[in-house]
């Protein structure tokens, strides 16, 4: 279903779905090359004379570097360069700024601050030699006590991790608050019931199937630096390199070829990229760096690792009066969140946006620990994943504390359709939605009432069945430019459209696909606006020399922002085509009407010209005084975020003897506004629900007391396979975004954001007779078993217990 109107009877408009416009589930253009093994990834890029770089990483979490002896590495035949932090410092590149206004070590000079930190790198004729030479570097460390959680970070006598920063006397990275403290306190004073919940959202990793990597090619004859890299935001990288490394921007070209998954992991500039560029400048040769799995999992941007301590003020009849919580983030060794908001803790205060909550107050604190830096990545608009998980776990706990049915409790508190635009207690303005309708579709689909009967019957036989609901809206599509920027550059996006004489078109966008299917869906937007069949449009992106400046793809922002820019540039083209049509039809422009694919004379529908005829005329028969050609560009600064809604419901059975739980059914109802390509939307939702299942069931990174990372390889960091992933039953509701040109909203993250709580709530619902309030994710069988047997909550916070 789309917002497209049915063509009127007698119309000659093209059938939009047939030509691949909005609502068409046309196959993905990208797949033709991907399934044939003809993709072109950074690893596939080979340049003449190319050298290979390998990084030496710290085995320790916290240690002072006493010495680094590289002589044995230099002595290995084929080694061209051994780079240490000391050498990088001579170029002022031992440290670099982060996107959260902190600094991060490129190569360690003074201390190592997490296991896996970059200590040195080697450039050699082949990657085997480079690895041999890394092994030959001798680093003398003096071990320091490691800190692996926020509690340790503020304990008296805790070692200072960031002794490199002047004025940093403790391990606190930031403090922040939002909301109305006094109003919230007053509301709590009036509460009948106060519901409390504490939990930890574990550290997870985006784990793209393609790790990070680059081929840096500095040409010392032309002075031009070309970098092929796995980036979700190549234009930002160009700006960053220009601003940080002080290279001239017109001589920097960033190319993101096919990118094998990003999930937020490929937004930042990591030390490996800086090293590859520096090594290419120093050797005057192309230098290839391909990160291995452990390097990716142990040093690049992770997600979550956040603690919640919450309270909700309630009336006996089930109305929420106020919420307040304290959130603590474990930032790792550097505050390197890749996020563009003005808020230290990202968009965590988007929590409770779908509920009619009068007032709230959030305090937050970020801590330095001896763990990998990062923190907002993984299919998430800057901590909305935590925000919505906290919200939905608190909602379920509150319903339980009131002794109220969890669906009914939501019904009483969800924002109603007539309340939009709705101002949330933390200042956001949600755009549109039909929350109660979505909830009801979900409840009907799962057979809510019947399940409750079945659950009660099963309990009598000692079987533990559970049902969990998660309802949420989230802010997708940064910016607007008032509130969102990166390095001061505002969060707009761009599109450039050229229609060739024969009516075929090239669309160039500033966004960057990593599997989302932009080359398919963005053509469909042009088709919707111009009636040019989608197969006649090619979409290009990812080369800063040849595409307009854009802020990249993450935070579900491509369709809300670059998609809007695409619609706007197509409208500019249509406006010019209308003038050409008037010229061809020999009538005045006011008498020309548009229907999909053609202009016609008002009152004489049969007299018309197609968009293709207009395109030819733009080059062969333009009216006097008109500039030839049919091309234009658009930069789009969104007026607001888009707010999709989702309702996810899971039913599970828990084996009380082993703690193993299985998903019986899973229903998803998504309202992401107008769906451009319904198949791709469903693919995004299924992928997100799979990742949500992973997080709730098996996937996490943790650290032992010595700071060793557990989950640094794919035997320990589990990705679910088709065997264990449950099936999903998907439903849709369409509430167009009122401020987006085609009514679309972001959807890429919804399921990964809203999904985890549905699974966890279902297991907690099954365990309700035991009195357990919370088990931290992932709900590993042993955690579930311990909780069920002791009736106690189970914490998953690090350090990880080992024997």
């Amino acid at each position, binding site marked *: 279903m789309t917002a497209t109107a049915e063509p009127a009877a007698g119309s000659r408009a093209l059938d939009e779905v047939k030509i691949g416009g909005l609502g068409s589930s046309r196959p993905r253009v990208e797949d033709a090359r991907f399934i044939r093994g003809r993709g072109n990834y950074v690893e596939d890029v080979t340049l003449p004379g190319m050298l290979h770089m*390998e990084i030496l990483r710290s085995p320790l979490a916290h240690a002072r570097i006493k010495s680094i002896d590289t002589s044995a590495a230099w002595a290995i035949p084929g080694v061209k360069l051994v780079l240490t932090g000391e050498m990088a410092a001579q170029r002022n590149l031992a440290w670099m700024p982060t996107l959260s206004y902190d600094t991060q070590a490129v190569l360690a000079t003074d201390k190592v601050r997490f296991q896996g930190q970059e200590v040195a790198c080697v450039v050699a004729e082949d*990657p*085997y030699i*480079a*690895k*041999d030479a890394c*092994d030959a570097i001798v680093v003398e460390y003096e071990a320091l006590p490691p800190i692996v959680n926020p509690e340790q970070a503020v304990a008296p006598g805790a070692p200072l991790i960031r002794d490199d920063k002047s004025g940093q006397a403790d391990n606190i990275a930031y403090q922040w608050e939002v909301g109305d403290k006094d109003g919230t306190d007053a509301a709590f004073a009036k509460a009948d019931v106060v519901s409390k919940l504490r939990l930890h959202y574990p550290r997870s990793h985006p784990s793209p199937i393609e790790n990070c990597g680059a081929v840096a090619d500095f040409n010392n004859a032309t002075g031009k630096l070309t970098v092929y890299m796995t980036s979700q935001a190549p234009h930002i990288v160009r700006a960053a390199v220009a601003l940080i490394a002080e290279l001239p921007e017109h001589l920097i070209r960033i190319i993101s070829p096919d990118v094998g998954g990003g999930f937020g992991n490929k937004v930042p500039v990591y030390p490996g990229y800086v090293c590859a560029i520096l090594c290419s400048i120093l050797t005057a040769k192309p230098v290839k760096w391909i990160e*291995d*799995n452990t390097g990716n999992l142990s040093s690049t941007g992770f997600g979550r690792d956040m603690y919640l301590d919450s309270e909700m003020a309630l009336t006996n009849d089930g109305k929420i009066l106020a919420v307040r919580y304290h959130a603590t983030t474990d930032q790792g060794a550097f505050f390197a969140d890749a996020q563009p908001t003005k808020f230290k803790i990202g968009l965590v205060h988007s929590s409770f946006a779908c509920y009619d909550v009068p007032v709230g107050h959030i305090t937050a604190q970020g801590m330095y620990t001896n763990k990998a830096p990062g923190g907002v990545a993984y299919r998430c608009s800057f901590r909305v994943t935590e925000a919505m998980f906290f919200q939905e776990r608190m909602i379920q706990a509150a319903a339980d504390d009131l002794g109220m049915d969890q669906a009914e409790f939501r019904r009483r508190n969800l924002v109603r359709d007539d309340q939009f635009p709705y101002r949330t207690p933390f200042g956001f303005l949600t755009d549109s939605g039909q929350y109660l309708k979505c909830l009801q579709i979900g409840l009907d689909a799962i057979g809510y009432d019947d399940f409750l009967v079945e659950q009660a019957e099963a309990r009598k036989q000692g079987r533990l069945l559970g049902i969990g609901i998660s309802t949420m809206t989230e802010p997708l599509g940064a910016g607007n430019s008032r509130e969102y920027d990166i390095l001061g550059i505002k969060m707009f996006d761009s599109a450039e459209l050229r229609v060739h004489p024969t009516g075929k078109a090239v669309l160039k966008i500033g966004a960057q696909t990593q599997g989302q299917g932009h080359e398919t869906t963005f053509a469909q937007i042009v088709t919707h606006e111009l009636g040019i069949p989608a197969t006649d449009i090619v979409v290009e992106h990812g080369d800063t020399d040849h595409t307009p400046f854009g802020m990249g793809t993450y935070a579900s922002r491509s369709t809300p922002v670059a998609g809007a820019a695409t619609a706007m540039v197509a409208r500019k083209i249509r406006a010019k085509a209308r003038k050409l049509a008037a010229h061809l039809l020999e009538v005045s422009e006011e008498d020309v009407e548009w229907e999909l694919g053609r202009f016609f004379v008002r009152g004489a529908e049969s007299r018309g010209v197609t968009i293709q005829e207009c395109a030819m005329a733009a080059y062969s028969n333009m009216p006097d005084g008109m500039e030839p050609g049919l091309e234009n560009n658009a930069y789009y600064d969104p007026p607001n975020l888009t707010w999709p809604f989702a309702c996810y419901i899971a039913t599970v059975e828990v084996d009380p*003897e*082993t*703690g*193993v739980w299985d998903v019986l059914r899973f229903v998803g109802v998504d309202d992401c506004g107008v769906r451009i390509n319904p198949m791709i939307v469903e693919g995004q939702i299924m992928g997100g629900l799979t990742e949500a299942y992973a997080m709730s*069931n*098996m996937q996490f990174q*943790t650290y032992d007391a010595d700071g060793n990372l*557990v*989950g640094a390889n794919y*035997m*320990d960091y*589990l*990705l*679910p*396979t088709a*065997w*264990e992933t449950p099936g999903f039953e998907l439903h849709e509701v369409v509430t167009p975004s009122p401020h987006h040109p085609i009514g679309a909203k972001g959807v890429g993250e919804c399921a990964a954001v809203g999904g985890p709580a549905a699974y966890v709530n279902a297991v907690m619902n099954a365990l309700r007779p035991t009195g357990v309030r919370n088990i931290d994710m992932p709900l*590993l*069988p*042993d955690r579930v*078993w*311990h909780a069920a047997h002791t009736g106690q909550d189970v914490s998953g916070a690090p350090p*990880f*217990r*080992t*024997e």
Partner: protein
Amino acid sequence: MYPSRFRYEAPRTLDEALALLAEHGDEAKILAGGQSLVPMMKLRFAAPGVLVDINNVAGLGFHEETPGGGLRVGALCRHVDLEHSTVLPGAQPTMAAAAPLVADPIVRTRGTLVGSLCHADPQGDWASVMLALGGSVVAASRRGRRTIPVGEFVVGTFQNALEHDEIAVEAVVPAAQGVRSGSYLKLERRVGDFATAGVAVALESVSGEIVRAGIALTGVGPATIAATEAAQALVGSTLDPDVVDRAAELAAAVARPRTDHRGTADYKRHVVATFVRRILTAERAPAGAAA
């Protein structure tokens, strides 16, 4: 993920392979399915100077029944061959239960049972199965052949009893003394995950009475564990509930699990008991019906 430099040899006969081992001693390593060795080499946990790939040696891919319910499994018999075997169902219930639980389908197309025994990973599934069945390994060298019971073959974590010049040419399940029954249960977090805990039970019975029993445990100690007392408690019984409970307790008592990311030690011990009970309770049902 770049291994250290190594020499690669691909002999076409067993004699050639044995000659290479005799020549290179502890510098050399056999490459069978490569599903354990290659990852270790890529991580540089293993750095053999010479890799002796036996995949071109003919006549090692077999598995075949021997008189009286025994079985021989050649060094290149893949996990997938056992998973899809027409020989195992009915005749080798414990093996048939384990075969589809080893690793994932991709790994199963390459990995071998004999390689798994040689690798001696305490989390390897086949070692428990073969230990419960009272199986053995036939080792060959230029000096001759010898047969080593699995209990003596797996000597510790990643340690087997082979000399440097020996190749394990086959694994052997002895003839049964009665009707075989039994099963294998494995708790894994995901397909392709190693066991959090696994239990192999191999029974032989005459007229419903157990005449021989083997129980072995996966992933709950520094090596595969034989739960000898638990198995002994079953002999002479008809798997009455109190016997089953006793065996479950005895098996859990010999487990020596560690708390790690797969679960706490208490939990793993509990899973061992639960699995022993589940297998034996399921076995009792048909046996009781036959009596």
